């Protein structure tokens, strides 16, 4: 079992570092990420500028740090809202069943038939470019997934005998939901959420890349990649660094997601 505890420590440590960067980014960033200094343009990596400077002389290291706050911070915000909206909706619809459930399923089907990227693009299209609209667009896409998951967990558990037992003991629906359903739902939702963060980060970065998310001069990783497009020749690192940061953060969450899924599967299988 050492393997498991070693993995658990590694996961917790990386999460701590990430949280540290996220919260303290503006304070530990050596330079003002949006301050333009044309004379410092396209500087290579040096002691002064740990990751060099971009085409407007801004310090890349500071932009990456504060960029983390926008990209990763926004994805946590999206996740939080999607959970807040989706899970209760799924719980009630699954538990109460009947007409509500049928209507709910129609809404979900409509959302689900469309690929999430397309819906996000179209929504942010109608709402107009900008970070707030992008967050809103992705939330409208993502909440359905959590509603559906919560609903499916409730439907499977609802038929189990221990729910009938609870009903026989005269427990109210609310009590049954709270005491019996929530533990099951949190397990599954946690796994989906961790795997989803990676997807949301990629979505924010991609949409910012094509100009629908963060608007210049905001230091968002996707937008930084877009700005770096013109400088392949003389400053390839401008393009490498933001890409690598996105990849690393998403990789960490995917690893965490895989770990949680295996951990929870063990519990679910046995139960």
């Amino acid at each position, binding site marked *: 079992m050492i393997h498991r505890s070693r993995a658990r420590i590694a996961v917790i440590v990386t999460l701590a570092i990430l949280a540290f960067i996220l919260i303290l980014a503006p304070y530990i960033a050596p330079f003002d990420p949006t301050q333009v200094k044309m004379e410092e343009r396209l500087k290579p990596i040096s002691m002064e500028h740990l990751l060099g400077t971009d085409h407007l002389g801004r310090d890349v290291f500071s932009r990456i740090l504060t960029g983390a706050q926008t990209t990763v911070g926004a994805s946590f915000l999206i996740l939080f809202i999607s959970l807040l909206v989706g899970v209760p909706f799924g719980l009630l619809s699954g538990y109460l069943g009947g007409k509500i459930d049928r209507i709910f399923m129609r809404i979900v089907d409509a959302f689900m038939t469309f690929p999430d990227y397309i819906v996000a693009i179209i929504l942010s299209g109608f709402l107009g470019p900008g970070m707030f609209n992008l967050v809103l667009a992705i939330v409208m896409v993502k909440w359905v997934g959590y509603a559906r998951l919560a609903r499916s967990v409730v439907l499977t558990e609802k038929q189990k*005998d*221990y729910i*009938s*037992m609870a009903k026989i003991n005269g427990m109210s629906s609310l009590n049954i939901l709270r005491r019996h359903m929530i533990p099951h739902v949190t397990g599954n939702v946690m796994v989906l959420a961790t795997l989803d963060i990676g997807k949301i980060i990629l979505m924010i970065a991609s949409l910012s890349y094509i100009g629908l998310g963060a608007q210049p001069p905001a230091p968002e990783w996707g937008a930084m990649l877009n700005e770096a497009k013109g400088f392949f020749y003389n400053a390839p690192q401008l393009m490498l660094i933001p890409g690598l940061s996105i990849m690393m953060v998403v990789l960490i969450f995917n690893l965490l997601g895989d770990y949680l899924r295996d951990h929870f599967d063990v*519990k679910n299988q046995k*139960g």
Partner: protein
Amino acid sequence: MRVVGQEILTVKNLSKEYVCGHKAVDQVSLTVNKGECLGIVGESGSGKSTLARCLLALEKIDEGEILLKEKSLYNANKKSLHPVRSEIQAVFQNPSASLNPKLKIIDSLMEPLDFQRKIQPSFLMDIRNQRTKMAERLFEMVGLPSKYLSYYPHELSGGQKQRVIIARAISIEPALIILDEPTASLDVSIQAKILNLLKDLQEDLGISYLFISHDLAAVNFMSQRIIVMKQGQIVDQCSKHDLFSDRRHPYTKDLLHVFEA
């Protein structure tokens, strides 16, 4: 040993029809007296489990009436159903499905007592407010070491889990426990112990049982009176002693032939 008289459960012409028109339970009437075990035997599809779910008010019934200690269980609305309902408990076939895998054993065990504060079971009166002590005593009554209280269901065997469920069923000293195939998924040796335990508890606590199973031999071992069900109807009814008399319904004779071999 059997206390005659006070009728715990009375069922009159109970019918339950499924939406496809198939009559799962058709005009069933029966009574269970105090401290008695009434056995119901029947193949799958005979309606015996549907009958059990109707008696437990888990499913609505289309016709007839259910009286528990002379108080009507069926046409009472949800609110007044509650006090009557606590007089009836259940043990189902699959022990793993009857315990929430995410809750510790003690939480599942104490659920009835936790959620029905008003109930004062006689054998727990002295420690009614000490939750762990009650749990330990209940485990003693069903022969389980109290260290299992902090375990999770997947750490116990089928037989042990069924004992936990029996302990939970008796915890609020109900008038009647409905046992729907309680030992069908257990090995023969464990089934013997569970059946013995149920008999001991009936003698100690005077709880009435409705023992439902496809296994005529197990039903015969547990019950004083036996009802035979087929396609939703009661086709035969007799006391245990004249099970082999030739007045029995042909279907009962077939069952006897199969189980006696």
